[in-house]
């Protein structure tokens, strides 16, 4: 079964039993592929006391904690096949993760992304306003997740506008021209949550300007932490943006660097949905046992798109909860869930800070001994 068959106009058709079997099978094959081509991954599997075997359940598959990608290179294709090294975002002293991408993985990621976004926009190509700015290209091959995401959106667009200048101010003239040019067409806006709030919403309010993008859809990602104080909550965020932009639909989505191409879109009921070609399992943070719906725990993500690096079964550090499967009132099949944010680590005390340092770098850790 070719994974690309799942990149449909409405990738929420598969029900639990069929989806599990299909994904488990694909992911098992992928595990073998990574085992044979990624020596460090192979060493990990071989060191485990129990070897994994083909299974119908995704939760039986071996998994990697996402942190491992910060510690060394994990690559399943020859060096020459790597066309991009994706770097996760990190604060100044936080060690970023590096994800090695080849052409095939990039292709699949683009198609998968378009499938999810396309299903929400109900079109395959559309004009996009990217609420962000270009950032200087540091390295031809290394790209950070922010730029990568913007590129993914450009790829879906029939025409696009990068809304902000280098100082993060709205390019008003260009916006005006773009709106005139695309007038009548369904418009899509994308931005990271805090950028939309700070650099689109606030300037509009200041200018006492309201846009009338009645047929428009806004997509945003990036979490609520940074704007919690200002926007108060997602409902207020939606309400205010709708008022200021005239939009009818606002979609939040959850994704991560290591899961390129997979966007877990929020449905009309406010639930995040797994598309047909991805899934999640919730695990207890200490025993790592899988948990049933309604229980909060660490989110493990599954993606058959990771061909060039062993990122097909990953244990994240985000806390979440499965709300249900195949029965969301919005009509989409598959698991739907909620994300609560990063797991906070207990105080790390130690004479030496190697523990915190290797995971957090300096700024995030409790300063050692002080």
């Amino acid at each position, binding site marked *: 079964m070719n994974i690309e068959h799942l990149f449909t106009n409405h990738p929420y058709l598969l029900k639990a039993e069929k989806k599990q079997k299909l994904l488990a099978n694909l992911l098992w094959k992928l595990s073998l592929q990574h085992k044979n081509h990624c020596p460090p991954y192979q060493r990990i599997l071989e*060191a485990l006391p129990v070897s994994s075997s083909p299974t119908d359940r995704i939760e039986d598959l071996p998994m990697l904690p996402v942190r491992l990608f910060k510690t*060394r290179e994990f690559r399943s294709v020859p060096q020459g096949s790597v066309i991009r090294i994706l770097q996760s975002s990190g604060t100044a002293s936080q060690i970023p993760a590096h994800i090695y991408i080849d052409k095939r993985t990039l292709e699949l990621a683009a198609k998968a992304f378009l499938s999810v976004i396309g299903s929400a926009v109900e079109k395959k190509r559309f004009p996009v306003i990217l609420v962000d700015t270009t950032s200087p290209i540091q390295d031809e091959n290394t790209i950070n997740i922010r730029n990568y995401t913007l590129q993914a959106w450009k790829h879906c667009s029939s025409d696009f506008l990068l809304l902000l200048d280098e100082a993060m101010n709205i390019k008003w003239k260009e916006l005006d021209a773009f709106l005139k040019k695309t007038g009548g067409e369904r418009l899509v806006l994308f931005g990271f949550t805090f950028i939309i709030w700070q650099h689109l919403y606030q300037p509009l309010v200041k200018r006492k300007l309201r846009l009338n993008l009645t047929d428009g859809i806004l997509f945003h990602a990036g979490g609520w932490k940074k704007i919690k104080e200002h926007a108060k909550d997602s409902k207020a965020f939606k309400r205010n943006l709708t008022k200021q932009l005239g939009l009818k639909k606002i979609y939040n989505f959850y994704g991560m660097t290591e899961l390129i191409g997979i966007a877990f879109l929020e449905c009309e009921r406010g639930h995040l949905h797994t598309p047909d070609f991805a899934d999640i399992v919730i695990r207890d943070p200490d*025993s790592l046992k899988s948990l049933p719906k309604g229980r909060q725990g660490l989110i493990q993500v599954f993606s058959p798109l990771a061909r060039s690096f062993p990122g097909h079964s990953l244990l994240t550090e985000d806390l979440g909860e499965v709300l249900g499967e195949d029965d969301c009132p919005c009509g989409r099949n598959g698991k739907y869930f909620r994300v609560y944010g990063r797991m906070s680590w207990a105080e790390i005390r*130690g004479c030496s800070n190697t523990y915190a340092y290797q*995971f957090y770098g300096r700024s995030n850790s*409790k300063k050692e001994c002080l």
Partner: protein
Amino acid sequence: MLVKILLPKRANREWRRLLSQITLVRPMKPFASLSLAFMQEVSKVLMIRERSLNSELKKLTHWTNKAHLMKIYQDYKAKRQDRFLLPRGVVLHFTPANIDSLFVYSWFMSLLMGNSNVIRLSRNKSPQITLLLEVLNNVLSQKRFRPIQERSLIVSYGHQQEITKELSQRCHVRVIWGGDQTIREIRAVSLPSRAIEIVFADRFSIAAIKAETVLAASAREVNKLAKNTYHDTLFFTQKGCFSPKLFFWIGKKKAINNAKQRFWSAIEKLASQEEIDWPKGIGIARMTTGYRYAAEGIADELSTVSTKFPYRIHLQKVKKNLREIHSGGGIFLEAEKTSLMAILELIVPKDQTLSVYGFSGHELKRFASQLSGYGLDRIVPIGQASNFQVVWDGYDLFTYFTREVTINALKER
């Protein structure tokens, strides 16, 4: 700039004034009877609250009791002979957040040498530290201990180099209890020209177990060994620099396999009985560390797919950099050698404590005699790794806290 005064607890005193007072008042004498009385009183008061003490604080109670103080006094006198040893003056201590009682040891060691003391404590206070401060403040409030109260100051503050600067300018000795990063930060703050500095940098500790002895031991002895191991490692969630993280099994293959069986069964049994308070997220931490060792080709076998304690990692190679990867939290690295001497070449200067079980005194002496050029500052029986000693990390603290005055004119008429 918020500086909190934790000791002495007196109303309406600004820390700068207290600091000035300490630097102006004359230091006490080494092993002053008042200092001894103070420590014994602390020991007594702690003993009254025995039930609320963990084993770490119980050890402190014994260290400060009359019998032990007399013993170290005797050792000191034997070392001193008829030399003139005087306090250096004001000692400034930066103590770590991971070992609750350490600030008391550091303070008392220095006080025994007659010094006045200023201590900076971490802002994160455990219940044990709160208890200790309470007891210390109570005892210090007794009238007879006024002289000691006037020569002691414990503060806590955030990351403000300016305050570290002010404190450092008034001291004669600066003691930094780790780690490497903290040392770098504090060293950036200069000291007065005649002041000296003692640093306790990041260390790593190991253990060596003789398989034969484990096999010959009774069940009771094996359980005791397990309890001792538990105490030195898990009790501090393996964060103490003295906590063994790498275990060398010494002997022949078959004996080692059987010994491991006995040992780990005893540990597992103990773990199920004790309630270990693991930090949040320890599961992922263990798994990431174990997987990392495997990915790097250092480990060839992990004891669990998941996170189950005890998390054992079998080493294929004993690489030098494995020390930096270890994250504590109940992870045991294991390797095998046919003799104790074989581990010599694997020891690096960063290694501090070797905890042992099952070797004769002769074997250990032979081993220690060959340590020049390698690391290790101490060899102790498993279970005593956390016992604070006057000589720590290779420093004879009594010597460092003292200045010697030599008089060559004594014979003149």
